[in-house]
């Protein structure tokens, strides 16, 4: 049982993923077509991309509720900047702005010692306000059709967002599991005081983590914006729920210290599969929100039960 539970952390989401795939292929003949699968994965990329950042944040013991606001802000900046300085620079500057927000988050959390919950909750509102102010309350249409390539274009038959997701995954994987920084992040998440006493620059690490989270939100915002060609200051409210769900479902523990990147990746696709399934049934879009909420609670429940079971075993002295 213990072995199973420890294994679950690594492959739990994978089981769900397989089960979901089987279910969907029975439910819909369309599912097994290459097109459909690519589409589903492409839809899952935003969740996955922000999920990577959120995984890093939760591993470090914090989290970021402001990601959907950052997405909106990025969207607005891009739509304003493209006419002025061209597509590549617009993307670059917007990503820098997104990262800057992350830095502000990190600074408030570390220097003012405000809890991540309150900070990112407040920043979420502030950034939405800023996005609305910068956009003048309107949605801004982007004229340059070329920008659409980012989100909807296909290279070698595979939608571009998937490439972006894979590249980011590779970067995050390397960062988290093969660099000192990654180990430091896990250390801070497991036991912050111990990490500090060991000499790690906890504050700096946290700030860096928040910069990265907001950066991923910026990327996701860029992809979304390129798909609609409109800068939307009120973009995707509630996306933070998807990001957190994807992370927890993927097996990253809320307690911090152990990030499961593969899990997040599969969870991102799994959520997209749920959307697809809901679409098949033909329900309204609100059911999507509802189901993600339910999935989150379910994932948390399993996470909680698992942790406590393992804790109890550990307390009894059984090797875990």
């Amino acid at each position: 049982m213990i072995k199973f539970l420890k294994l679950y952390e690594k492959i739990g989401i994978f089981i769900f993923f397989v089960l979901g795939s089987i279910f969907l292929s029975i439910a819909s003949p369309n599912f097994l077509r290459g097109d459909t699968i690519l589409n589903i994965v492409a839809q899952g990329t935003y969740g996955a991309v922000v999920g990577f950042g959120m995984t890093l944040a939760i591993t470090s013991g914090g989290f970021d509720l402001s990601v959907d606001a950052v997405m909106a802000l990025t969207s607005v900046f891009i739509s304003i900047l493209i006419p002025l300085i061209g597509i590549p620079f617009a993307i670059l500057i917007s990503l820098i702005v997104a990262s800057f927000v992350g830095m502000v988050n990190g600074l408030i959390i570390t220097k003012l010692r405000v809890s991540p919950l309150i900070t990112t909750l407040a920043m979420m509102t502030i950034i939405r306000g800023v996005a609305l102010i910068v956009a003048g309350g309107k949605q801004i249409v982007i004229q340059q059709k070329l920008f659409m390539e980012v989100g909807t274009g296909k290279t070698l038959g595979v939608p571009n967002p998937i490439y972006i997701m894979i590249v980011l995954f590779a970067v995050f994987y390397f960062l988290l599991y093969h660099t000192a920084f990654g180990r430091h992040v896990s250390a801070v998440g497991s036991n912050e005081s111990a990490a500090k006493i060991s000499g790690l620059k906890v504050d700096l690490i946290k700030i860096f983590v928040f910069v990265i989270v907001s950066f991923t939100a910026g990327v996701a915002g860029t992809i979304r914006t390129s798909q609609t060609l409109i800068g939307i200051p009120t973009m995707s409210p509630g996306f933070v729920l998807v990001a957190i769900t994807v992370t927890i479902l993927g097996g990253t523990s809320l307690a911090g210290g152990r990030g499961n990147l593969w899990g997040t990746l599969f969870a991102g696709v799994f959520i997209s599969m749920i959307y697809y399934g809901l679409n098949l049934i033909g329900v309204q879009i609100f059911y999507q929100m509802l189901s993600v909420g339910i999935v989150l609670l379910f994932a948390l429940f399993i996470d909680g039960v698992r942790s406590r079971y393992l804790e109890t075993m550990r307390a009894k002295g059984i090797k875990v």
Partner: protein
Amino acid sequence: MERTRGMGIRARIARRWENFGLPLLFFVLLVIFSTLSPPFRSAYSLISNFRFSSFIGIGAIGMAFCIMNGDFDISVGSMLSLVAAMGSSFLPKIGGVSAVLFTILFSTFLGFVNGVFVTKLRIPAFITTLGMMFIYRSLAYIYTNNTPVYIENPFWLFLGNGSVLGVPFAIILMLICYVVAFLLLRRSPFGRYVIAVGTNRETAMLSGINVDRTKITVFALVGLFVGIASVVISANLGSANPGMLGQGYEFQVITAVVLGGTALGGGDGNLWGAFFAAMILTYLKNGLGLMQVDSYWQFVAVGLVLIFAVALNRLKFTLLGQRQA
């Protein structure tokens, strides 16, 4: 007021602030806005602001209990929207009094559900309520099919808009709620349990306090006050809009509680502080609106107030040598 003998000058100031700071801030705010904006200082404006502050003020009571207990409930905005939409939709069928009663009972029940999830499933409060926030909101959309419910029932509308002897009923309601809350917190064992659990959960448990039962009751209380607030605000607006109602409510209410001086980490808190903070926030928002400030700046302003309030709280606790969140 506790004695400050033997404490440094900074600590004395902190202590004074704790007791007089907010009313002072409120007064300063009134003066500033009255000077800057003539419409603001009209009696009508001042009274209607007071009435609006009951929306945040009443919700802040429940949230204050919750935070003192060591938890957060960020689902209150969506809860508000759901119960207002459902309750008001029953108005034509069961009449004003029953509909209001249903709304309040239903929201108390939702709070109870939150409490059960948090205690029995052992999921951290804010994440649970984060999930519930989206679940409640989507249920509101689904139930109303994304159309607002218009309210015409006189009883319901009176609760939010009516006046008794010239005093808006909403204010009377808010004051009653605060008195009840005060009695609950300071004059009953339950109130002491709430603070004990928030201060140190393990110690409270070892002292024989039923932590789970306390927590569930606290969450149910949050629901109760949210229900009352939902009736007031939907009466004010004349409708219950599943999408817009309560957006950002959790945020405003938490800001009010924190600005009022309650520590985020749990433990003793300041109910009357929350009352004044709710008024400050409402007057601030309306004042900015009257000064033709872009409404989006209001978002920014409230967010900044929250961060400022928390940072200020920390400073106060450090100076007074009390525990930090």
